């Protein structure tokens, strides 16, 4: 108890909401249910700080570990190593009470809006569940909060929606209910894992804008996980790029777009077209190869087999350190070790 109560002085000064240090989440691979074959190193050393009310985008391709990051932060997967501190409290080996305290302060918005809602519960019931579980005993209080949540998510008139079942709602409406549910406990942080990728293109913008409005109005910190880089500029201040279970570059949005450092980030940005007829005339540069196996990651830098700027003897032997280039721009690449500020 004492450890959790002690808030690090540094964090208090910098007003950090979520602090993640060298977080690793490994999954055991077993054959025949018994034999341990190895570990899938889904998250392999992730560190960052998040301020209250800050929106951060985590981008990367499939298998880079972003979903695992979401689940570890939410407490759905126990971390194998490393530290997660929320609001000053250490979440390693949490007691039941601590876990409960934490879960009421972090909301989860999932990718599949229909799957995220129990199909046999009405909207009212869906929103009531988190309240009941977290001890809001007064029925009127719950009613009030449900009304409030639905209104904030622009699902009005509220009466129309209370008794509907998920299959009666459109994709966009379903996702709003999911967000309402994530918000109803008045959390300080919302983790949104690909919140709009299963929605229609025209609805995506609407939902993302709504989320942004809510974030600004209620000072919510948002971790926005996506593989659709073209949306990130509109909805977050900072961006983390993940590859092979690590954050290989993190920076402020405009900084990253204007001046990407890591070769992978460069490749990623090059692959994203703005819609323009000229695109049909040229080939895009794409790094060869495939994302690395998380079971047996390559020695040294995870990206080196595909990197055109690889330094032999260095990148293929030792993992690069995290280089702070100033202004919150951190990159994990041997090319920049002499630029440490």
């Amino acid at each position, binding site marked *: 108890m004492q450890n959790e109560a002690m808030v690090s002085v540094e964090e208090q000064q910098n007003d950090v909401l979520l602090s993640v240090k060298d977080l690793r989440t490994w999954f055991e691979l077993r054959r025949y249910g018994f034999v341990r074959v190895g570990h899938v190193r889904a998250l392999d050393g992730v560190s960052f700080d998040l301020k209250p009310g800050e929106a951060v985008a985590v981008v990367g*391709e*499939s298998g880079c570990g972003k979903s695992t990051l979401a689940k570890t932060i939410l407490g759905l997967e126990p971390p194998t190593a490393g530290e997660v501190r929320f609001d000053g409290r250490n979440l390693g080996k949490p007691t039941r009470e601590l876990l409960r305290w934490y879960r009421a302060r972090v909301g989860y918005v999932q990718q599949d809006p229909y799957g995220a809602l129990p199909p046999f519960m009405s909207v009212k019931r869906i929103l009531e569940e988190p309240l009941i579980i977290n001890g809001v005993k007064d029925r009127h209080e719950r009613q009030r909060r449900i009304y409030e949540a639905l209104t904030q998510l622009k699902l009005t008139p509220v009466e129309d929606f209370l008794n509907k079942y998920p299959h009666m709602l*459109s994709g*966009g409406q379903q996702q709003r209910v999911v967000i309402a549910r994530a918000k109803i406990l008045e959390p300080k942080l919302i983790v949104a894992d690909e919140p709009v990728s299963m929605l*229609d*293109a*025209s*609805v*995506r*913008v*609407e939902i993302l*804008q709504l989320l942004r409005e809510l974030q600004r109005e209620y000072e919510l910190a948002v971790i926005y996980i996506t*593989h*659709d*880089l*073209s*949306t990130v*500029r*509109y909805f977050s201040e900072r961006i983390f790029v993940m590859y092979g279970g690590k954050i290989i570059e993190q920076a402020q949005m405009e900084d990253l*777009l204007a001046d990407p450092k890591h070769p992978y980030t460069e*490749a*990623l*940005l090059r*692959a*994203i*077209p*703005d*819609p*323009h*007829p000229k*695109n*049909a005339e040229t*080939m*895009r540069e*794409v*790094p060869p190869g*495939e*994302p690395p196996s998380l079971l047996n990651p390559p020695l040294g830098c995870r990206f080196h087999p595909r990197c055109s700027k690889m330094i032999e003897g260095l990148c293929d032997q030792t993992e690069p350190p995290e280089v702070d280039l100033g202004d919150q721009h951190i990159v994990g690449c041997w090319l920049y070790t002499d630029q440490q500020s």
Partner: protein
Amino acid sequence: MRKTSSDSALLRIEGLRLHFKTMRGTVQAVDDVTFSLNRGRTLVVVGESGCGKSSLARGILRLLPRNVETYSGKIYLNGDELMCLTDERFRREVRWVRMSMVPQAAMNSLNPVVRVEDQVAEPLLVHKCVTTREEAYERAREAFRMVGVPLDFMTRYPFELSGGMRQRVALAMALVTDPELVVLDEPTSALDLLTQANIMNVLKQIKKDIGVTFILITHDIATSSELADDAAVMYAGQLVEFCDAGRFYLDPLHPYSRGLMGSVPTLWERKDLMFIPGQPPSLLDPPKGCRFAERCPDRFDKCEEEPPLTEVDVGHWVKCWLHR
């Protein structure tokens, strides 16, 4: 009869209608679609989900489910009218011989217990495009080369390949019989960014090498610009705009097309994002008059009447009273 500037139309569709019977009524999935596509060009068909673009693809290839109520119109492939063919003749002579398709999530629709080389060779054997099995496998190898799958992957099973590889195998299957037209239904929607870019590169290369005509159906407008020569916009089962890519991506005419372009988030261009409020109408009971009127910012009273598809410029068709 629609005439384009050079009469080298490979595919001409006139008044295609495809309605389905469901428990809740008749779904008018494709309603009176008319356009023509020249040889060697790529047409992208864009629209929201439920606008009927996948049904259009199925209609062109006559891959119809059991509950079809109406299937009418005319489809001309290289001058040959296809709707009058019997199902059996269509299967033998057209489908996968002259036209083929890469369906949505094709990477998941490969037969898991058959080796990929066998799957790619199969269309040749079924449609008797070759005389010997060796010839079939030789052409399969060529197809693999064309899509950029290394030849030592040929003897593998689908689960041994990554998503991108599987998508390429599906593409090879569609190309192996050397068809004149290939329809691609959301070929990259389930793939990662870099893999998407790779597939697009492959398609661009194939286009350059063998001049195949593509119809690309997608809701991802940004990626569609990688391949598009012409663009067709569908809304609520109808074709609302048809023009060349240059026009579409830079300055479309139909209010829906403009709304669609405005809602595409761009990484490089600074712009404010718009979105179209509301939802597309149900195909069960589409509204009378212009189907987009309800959500259109430029709606006026004439829109209560259904506008005709008008050619406002050479090869540019718009279904809107504003552009009469």
